[in-house]
């Protein structure tokens, strides 16, 4: 199993080598902070961010493509890491978020899975929104900082000391946010396939995902220590010459943006106050930095911005996912056909009578779908094609048909019941499982419905947090009872 994680660790290492430069690059290049200090704080807080708050952004990535075999996850992470590495060699500031998205799409194409367009749109739109937001934050922040310095007449040396602390603070906050947001890129694809047991240490329980995130965080830290210095020293001279105060403003803006896109607590708070929420998606720290730098550069008249470099960076944002998708496709082909490894679990589809009834209940006219009744289809893409031939459905209804038709082979066996860890499930939920023991299901929704009938705790409600928890529990149970 750990052999398969190696590509994730490689991706973590390259993320550490590259993205740490966004957080501490300007501070180190301008000699405001020593490399050793920067690397130490960066590593520590990346790991903390990954383990404590890493779960938020990984959900969206999971929805984009449910990589369902560990060998497939290995290739997805490998393709992303390879494209990051190649782009770095070509001296393009690269985004691991884009690389991993490209690689997942490559896997989706290879395995015949559908790419969830709403998740993809959500992620791609943040690639545009993220630099704009960073620019939008850096501009007023810079104006306020400049105003404050003038208003209080801070002595150059005091300002120097404040700026150093500010750079360190922004770097720490940035590292934490980077860990929280980007760990999904590094380890996200392994979460559904790794099935690690929870570990309790000093009274704190680490879930399987957290263990993976810790591993990924350590890989990032190694990347920071071994390879980021060179990148850090060149990053400051990229788009615009930054003074240390500007650098601090830029790093704060970057860190705020990353935090906005990864904090579950903030999302809950915004929701409770009736405010619009930020989607929890892995965003690119490079894009955030570039946006923030351009924001400050524009305030200075924009004449000194090297637009050619900006254009180069932006073109890298388009090519990175494409390269990653191609590498992913090619490597999957080799691993599957040359090395005989299962890079995906075959998921077939069939609209049987129960499935038809469920679809009809939800308001979709099933009459036109009758030619598909009891026809077994090899993958999601072929089912989608067949359905679209017969009738036009909106995205939500199509998703429902696909989900309902998806075949699985689940059996609530006594042996599998014994293997369930008590920490992940409540007493009532366990009772519900025992009640349906011995039953088998061809569709996952059938098992979910059977459980919901037995216990309220298996029913979805208006509480988003409860639903997220329930979804993740159900996923674990499907894996547990799959024959």
């Amino acid at each position, binding site marked *: 199993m750990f052999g398969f994680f190696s590509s994730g660790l490689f991706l973590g290492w390259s993320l550490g080598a590259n993205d740490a430069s966004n957080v501490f690059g300007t501070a180190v290049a*301008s*000699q*405001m902070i020593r490399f050793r200090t920067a690397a130490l704080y960066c590593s520590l807080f990346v790991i903390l961010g990954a383990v404590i708050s890493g779960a938020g952004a990984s959900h969206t990535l999971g929805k984009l493509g449910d990589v369902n075999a560990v060998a497939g996850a290995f290739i997805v992470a490998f393709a992303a890491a390879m494209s990051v590495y190649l782009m770095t060699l070509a001296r393009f500031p690269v985004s691991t978020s884009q690389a991993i998205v490209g690689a997942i799409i490559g896997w989706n194409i290879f395995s015949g899975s559908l790419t969830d367009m709403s998740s993809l749109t959500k992620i791609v739109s943040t690639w545009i929104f993220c630099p704009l937001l960073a620019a939008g934050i850096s501009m007023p922040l810079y104006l306020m900082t400049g105003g404050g310095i*003038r208003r209080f*007449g*801070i*002595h*150059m*040396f*005091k300002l*120097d*000391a404040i700026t*150093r*602390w500010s750079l360190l603070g922004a770097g720490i906050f940035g590292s934490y946010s980077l860990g929280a947001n980007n760990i999904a890129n590094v380890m996200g694809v392994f979460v559904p396939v790794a099935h690690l047991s929870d570990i309790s240490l000093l009274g704190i329980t680490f879930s399987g995902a957290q263990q993976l995130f810790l591993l990924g965080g350590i890989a990032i830290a190694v990347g920071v220590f071994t390879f980021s210095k060179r990148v850090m020293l060149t990053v400051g001279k990229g788009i615009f*010459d930054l*003074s*240390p105060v500007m650098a601090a403003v830029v790093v704060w803006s970057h860190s705020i943006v990353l935090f906005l896109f990864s904090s579950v607590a903030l999302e809950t708070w915004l929701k409770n106050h009736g405010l619009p929420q930020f989607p929890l998606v892995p965003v690119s720290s490079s894009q955030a930095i570039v946006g923030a730098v351009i924001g400050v550069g524009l305030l*200075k008249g924009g004449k*000194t911005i090297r637009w050619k470099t900006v254009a180069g960076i932006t073109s890298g944002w388009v090519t990175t996912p494409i390269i990653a998708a191609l590498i992913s496709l090619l490597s999957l082909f080799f691993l599957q056909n040359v090395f005989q490894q299962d890079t995906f679990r075959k998921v077939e589809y069939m609209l049987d009578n129960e499935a038809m009834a469920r679809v009809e209940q939800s308001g979709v006219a099933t009459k036109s779908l009758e030619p598909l009744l009891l026809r077994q289809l090899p993958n999601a893409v072929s089912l989608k094609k067949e359905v679209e031939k017969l009738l036009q459905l909106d995205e939500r209804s199509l998703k429902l048909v696909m989900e309902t038709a998806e075949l699985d082979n689940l059996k609530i066996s006594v042996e599998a019941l014994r293997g369930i860890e008590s920490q992940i499930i409540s007493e009532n939920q366990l009772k519900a499982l025992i009640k349906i023991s011995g039953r088998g299901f061809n569709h996952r929704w059938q098992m979910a419905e059977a459980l919901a009938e037995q216990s309220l705790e298996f029913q979805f409600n208006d509480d988003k947090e409860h639903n997220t928890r329930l979804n993740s529990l159900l996923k674990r149970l499907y894996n547990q009872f799959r024959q």
Partner: protein
Amino acid sequence: MKIFKRALGVEKQIDNFLNQVVRSGLIFSQGAEAYLTGNKTDFKRKLKEIVEVEHTGDDLRRSIQQYLYTKTLIPESRSDVLQLLEDMDSLLDRFKGALWRMEIENLDIEEDFHEDFLLLIKVVVETVEAIVHAVRAFFKNISAVADHLDKVYYWETESDKISTRLQSAIFRKEELRLSHRMLQRELARHLDKIADRAEDVADSLNIYVIKRSV
């Protein structure tokens, strides 16, 4: 917190160094006045004082220089600041040099020129005080630098005017020997050059301000 203490320490040293520059101007002014009035004792005392001030200024400048390099403070403006301090130190040196010139040459300055010489000294000291204010503002309140620089340029122009007037008057005094005329002219030029040098520092400071605000 160590870094704030460090900042406070170097701030004090720079303030102290600039105080030495101002003090050297005042000592020079009093010393020159004593020379013109023939008060040898006061002149000697002022000469001694200015040498001490110059030593203190040199020590402070070296200490600041070493501090900035070893503690890697203000990396982006370090070279500008050090150049600025060196330039300010050269003003201090020139005040000392002017008093020593009087001591070495033991020049007999015609009474007719005393008033203009005193005025020139006053204007030169004003120029240097204005540049000291500008430098202090550079560290504390960068937007105020321009106002002080305006004063530097104003006093430097005044100094030019007085110096030209004084040199013309010296050379029109035909009863004096040429060598005597030339020595008095040189002294007037020496004093005017202090104001010129302050103007050069003002020009550099102007650039440092632009660099810092980019």
